[in-house]
């Protein structure tokens, strides 16, 4: 996670095993809302930007319902931790760690993301 300065021509990049993948313009991310990105291996990532400009990236697949929709959830913060609530059955996931806040046994994958 990196603090993204307010510049429009910055790109959002995801760290994969073999380097950084450029995903989209920073301006494509509306604060408080997510987008989905497709990785070369077919996996899907949900990208978010919060009000302060911090970027987050987690697996897009809702582990409870199975659909790839976490990018379409509402975001917020709970005790200072940023989260997204799944649009299916509303379980919340910590955006920094991928931990499900409503079921301690569930966690989704997280990715390193930056704007540059």
């Amino acid at each position, binding site marked *: 996670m990196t603090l993204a300065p307010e510049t429009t021509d910055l790109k959002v990049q995801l760290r994969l095993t073999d380097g950084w993948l450029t*995903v*989209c313009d920073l301006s*494509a991310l*509306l*604060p*408080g*809302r997510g*987008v*989905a*990105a*497709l990785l070369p291996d*077919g996996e*899907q990532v949900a*990208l978010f930007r*919060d*009000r302060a400009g911090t970027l987050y990236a987690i697996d897009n*697949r809702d*582990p*409870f*319902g*199975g*659909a*790839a*929709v976490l990018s*379409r*959830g*509402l*975001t*917020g*913060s*709970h005790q200072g931790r*940023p989260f997204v*609530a799944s*649009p*299916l*059955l*509303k*379980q*919340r996931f910590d955006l920094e760690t991928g931990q499900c806040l*409503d*079921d301690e046994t*569930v966690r989704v994958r997280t990715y390193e993301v930056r704007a540059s």
Partner: protein
Amino acid sequence: MTATGANPTIVLVGHGMVGQRFLEALAERGLTATHRVVVLCEEPRPAYDRVALTSYFSGRTPEDLSMTDMAFIESHGIELYIGDPAETVDREARKVTARSGQVFDYDVLVLATGSYPFVPPVPNKDAEGCFVYRTIEDLLAIEEYAKSRARVGAVVGGGLLGLEAAGALKGLGIESHIVEFAPRLMPVQVDEGGGAALLRTIEEMGLSVHTGVGTQEIVVGEDGAVTGMKLSDGSELATDMVVFSAGVRPRDQLARDCGLTVGERGGITVDEQCRTVSDPHVFAIGECALASDGRVYGLVAPGYEQAETAAATIAEDEAEFTGADLSTKLKLLGVDVASFGDAHGTTEDCLDVVYSDSRSGLYKKLVIGRDGTLLGGILVGDAEAYGTLKAFTGSVPPVSPESLVLPAGAGESAQLGPTALPDDAIICSCNNVRKGTIREAVTEHKCTTVPEVKKCTKAGTTCGSCVKVLGQLVNAELEAGGVVVDKGLCGCFSQTREELYEIVLALRVNTYQDLLDRYGREEARGGDGCEICKPAVGSIIASLAPTIGADVYVLDGEQAALQDTNDHFLANLQKNGSYSVVPRIPGGEITPEGLIVIGEIARDFGLYTKITGGQRIDMFGARVEQLPLIWTRLVDAGFESGHAYGKSLRTVKSCVGQTWCRYGVQDSVRMAIDLELRYRGLRSPHKLKSAVSGCARECAEAQSKDFGVIATTNGWNLYVGGNGGATPRHADLLAQDLSDAELIRLIDRFLMFYIRTADRLERTSTWLERLPGGLDHVRDVVVEDSLGICEELESLMAAHVSHYRDEWADTINDPEKLARFVSFVNAPDTPDPVVGFVPERDQIKPDLPLLSIGLRPAEDVLEGTAQR
């Protein structure tokens, strides 16, 4: 206790619900530290919640049902042997031998072996397709058989467990029959009147009930599998499977084999301390025990009490078990059934107070003593008052008994607050917790929330039927202690929704961030808010948009980030990530051309098409990137958003009315269209539905709507606060014989008053019931204008009506917004591969790889009703 070595051993046989509670009671008394504790568990899994077995069919997994915290077992050094039952007991040598061959010496032996289901000795009772219903394994076997080879199932026994089993079969989607020997359902708990109310409701759910007949033989086919049942009246019932639920019998074989005394009709005979009468080293608790009052208790609460008694005795505390209350409250197949105290009125000279409305499946009976003491009662169909009534049992209630059984709104009815209860009233009968103990949890142990009180007192942790009363007591106690109960909307705002509405309106606050930074809780200011307040505030801003200077388009600027997923994509999300599309069809009236356009679009995009319950057409299975293409065609053909996704007006249903119908007295279709067009797009705390019927026959079902209109020869009658859904409510008559203009003016006022004062996700029905003064207050405000706000309410509605724009037309004309309707930001043309379909009945259905790791508890799953 006569402990032999330095490490006396307690052996527990049976790890069911009562066994587990016994272990907890041992730990609480420090006995796990001073004793070796060995548990022999027959089932392939540790203790689970048998009472909630049927909730498996509403999505609870076997893991969710578990009652055993392995960390608890380990930290107390308990040796738990799963899948290893006790086979023999040598009382002389004090040894137990398990099936695995292990032998354990004991100083104390506790039998908690529960019951086994009784199967009547009818021919072919063991045939393939015959089941019992007691364990998770039974349930899995029933599920598998039902899925692979049964269409019809029959349950033998119409008692509590039989209805549970029938509910399970129904949950599996197969046609279900209940065969009960007694003349009514649940003969033990309810009387004839209650049984009739129950029967009616259960039959309405599509279950067939056969009372007064016995099962004589199970009929099998050539392959030996069940094909039917012969009944005592000579008839034969065709069925593919049979579940026996004809009662339970104590599992006392182990005790018999080692010479312990058992009752004539089974059950290991114990004294007040739960110690067997034959051997001071052996205890029996739970459903296998025959208590000192000569009863075998088949409920979990008395079993828990026995577990505590036995543990206390072992710890040499004073405790005794002399008998227990048989009160029960159940939600069987969604019907509330409760009985408590002397439900059948066996006390001499007692009187009954009965309220019965068999049309709506309501039956309430209270048994009152000569001196006015409440002795017991039966509630069927509505058991709201169970918690309070049960706690008043044995005392003279402070209000008249009649008023306690009448339904709310029927003149005399009175609400008895739990605060009126004496301190020694039992609030939670499963765990035997008194009101005083709950109050102490707040005053002495500083608990401030219901979950804390549950943890501290165990109240509310078993069947859950007392949780409502618990919440009221905790709040009352906190308020009495000067603690301000936090009624805030969420962790970000300390105000209620109503207060936030007033702030937004009065101060013209038109962005969420501004509201959060100025009026949010200190710690939430400057932050990102949460999933509760964002849509709630988004809705307030949208309702007031023209008045406070916000854009009426809900995807404009910051508003887009506040919308729930459905509103954000202006469509309803489906389970596989696809969306449904519902164009508005005002009043349900549609031209053949309109139908053809919808048909063509559905065909061209391969959408699953269905007529909805709201007189319109839903097309399912659209990928996110198809939504703009579909809507471009719909908008071109003159359709607009149906707001099926929004907390806003859904439909105004109509009947065909005066124009065609020989009974109609007004033009109900025209009125329905006028109302639908007037209020379309109006954002509200919950969704709004309406209907207009052309005469009192009520073919449009207006009385089940938030606002419903029924034609009279003189005009229109307006009903408000109706609801279908999970908790149906008939609407109340607000005003009669209104002209068109009067009708619309009243609805304008009513809706705006509701939007102003309701809580988040509070439908008009619950709002009306919560509001102090209820319907009378609403009538004062909107008809009599007692608050002098009607002019403002009307002008707010006028602003909404004149500024309405179709949000789908706005969206397809805005390239920047359209850019959001893509599956992947970096691959906009690649469809989401997870969204797949398979054919079914000439159309499609979602194909979702099952990743079942459990659901959130069922009560939260109802969209909209979820509260945290």
